[in-house]
Each structure stands twice: as structure tokens, then as C-alpha cells.
């Protein structure tokens, strides 16, 4: 008899019929990243990507989170909004995030693709930063990590 073992399903990478995720995040919404190296960081959501991913940016200058794709299921949307209606994301594509094949490292020299990534990131981030210009409190909010302590009840929290 074959015993079926229970396996924990991973976050789905399957494309839905429309190619878009069930968007529970609106562009401009501040979201909290729930897992990975940037867990707890509050970042600005920029765009819903296909396969349930989300394009986010710290911005890097504020909290150290670069332009990044995160699974939308690993994020909690908050009620805070940043006005990014005028943002230009035409330079951002999947190719931008592709990692280069590992070759011999040249010390002190950045690869061309990384240079390009930094350029795109800084143009996107300056646009977000200009939207945050007169909001020192919002900047501070983005700089603060979200964390639970004993006795906290996420099921009663309003984000």
C-alpha cells in the first residue's frame, strides 16, 4: 500500500487565468513583509505582478529594502497609503531581477546588470521619496519594523 505523506503546500506559483493575482493590495499601499530577510519591514507596494507577486520598494534610502518582488500572500496590507499615482514603472521588468550567472568575481567592479538595477531603483525610489517629501511621520513609520510581543493578538488587530 502506498502511503501518501502530507506535504506542506508552498506559496502557489501557478499563473491564474488572468495572469493577475487576487489583488488584495492596492498600489501605493504600505505593506508589512511577513517572511524572509526583510520580515517586519514596512514597504510601499508599487504594482501587482502576475502569479501572485507584488512589486515593492522600501524605499531603499529609508529602510534598506530594495526594489523587490515578494509573494502577495507573505505580506499584510495596511490602511496607510502613499500617493504614487504619478510613478513611472516602465523601466521595471522581470529581466531586471534576473541574476547573472556566477563567474569570476572582479573585485571593485560592479556588473553591468547590477549597475542597471541600481539606476532603475534610484529613479523609482526618488519618485516615491518625492511623494513622501512633506511627511516626516510617514517616513519614520516606514523606517520602523513591525514586531509582535507577548500578549499581542493579530486576529484582533486592524492593520
Amino acid at each position, binding site marked *: 500500500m502506498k502511503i501518501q505523506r*502530507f506535504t506542506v*503546500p508552498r506559496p502557489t506559483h501557478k499563473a491564474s487565468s488572468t495572469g493577475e493575482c487576487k489583488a*488584495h493590495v492596492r498600489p501605493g499601499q504600505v505593506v508589512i513583509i511577513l517572511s524572509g530577510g526583510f520580515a517586519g519591514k514596512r514597504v510601499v507596494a508599487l504594482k501587482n505582478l502576475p502569479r501572485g507577486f507584488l512589486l515593492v520598494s522600501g524605499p531603499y534610502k529609508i529602510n534598506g529594502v530594495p526594489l523587490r518582488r515578494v509573494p502577495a500572500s507573505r505580506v499584510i496590507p495596511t490602511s496607510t497609503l502613499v500617493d504614487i499615482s504619478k510613478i513611472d514603472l516602465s523601466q521595471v521588468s522581470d529581466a531586471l531581477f534576473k541574476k547573472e550567472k556566477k563567474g569570476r568575481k572582479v573585485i571593485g567592479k560592479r556588473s553591468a546588470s547590477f549597475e542597471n538595477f541600481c539606476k532603475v531603483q534610484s529613479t523609482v525610489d526618488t519618485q516615491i521619496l518625492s511623494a513622501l517629501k512633506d511627511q516626516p511621520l510617514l517616513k519614520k513609520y516606514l523606517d520602523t*519594523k513591525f514586531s*509582535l510581543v507577548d500578549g499581542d493578538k493579530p486576529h484582533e488587530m486592524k492593520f
Partner: protein
Amino acid sequence: MPARLYVKGTFLGFRRSLYSQRCSTSLIGVEGVKTKSDARFYLGKRVAVVYKKSSKSDQCGMIWGKIVATHGNSGVVRAKFESNLNPRWMGRTVRVMMYPYKA
């Protein structure tokens, strides 16, 4: 400092009847959850148990699972793990993660 993004839970035991138990389903009490409706928030969330691999070393292992159902009326939930939990761990603290988030 890394942010704590999990709620503490307790591994209460296995799902069982009077004389038999089903080790494939574990019962988890989540801190601060006292009712069934509160427990519903945690359905589908991932759970992790951190354990020491041996008494001699500090190497830790992790068993992942997810919350599959509520259990009873007092906020206890059922969880399934990729491998069944060690019965000696009953009463131990587990981590109930806040993801996957469902809108």
C-alpha cells in the same frame, strides 16, 4: 534585532478519542485565542516547531506544518505537520506564523 512575526502556541496533544489517537493531526492552542471565531483567523497559517537535534549540540531543526481546522469551541486549532510531532513535545511552545495572508 529581528522582528518576531509569529504568535506563540502550545502543542497540546494529538487529535484523539478515548482510547486511540491520531498522531497525524496535532492540536495547537494559540496564545490569546479563546473562541472558535478568533481561531478562524489562523486557518491555513503556517506553524513551525523548533527543536534541538541532539542534547550534545546546539543544532536546531524545524518541522513545518499548517493549521487545517478549528477544534472544538474554545479556540484550539488542528495542525498537520510534514512529519508527525514527537509526543514528548506535548506542552511545548510552537510558532504560529502570520502568513499566508488571505484577503
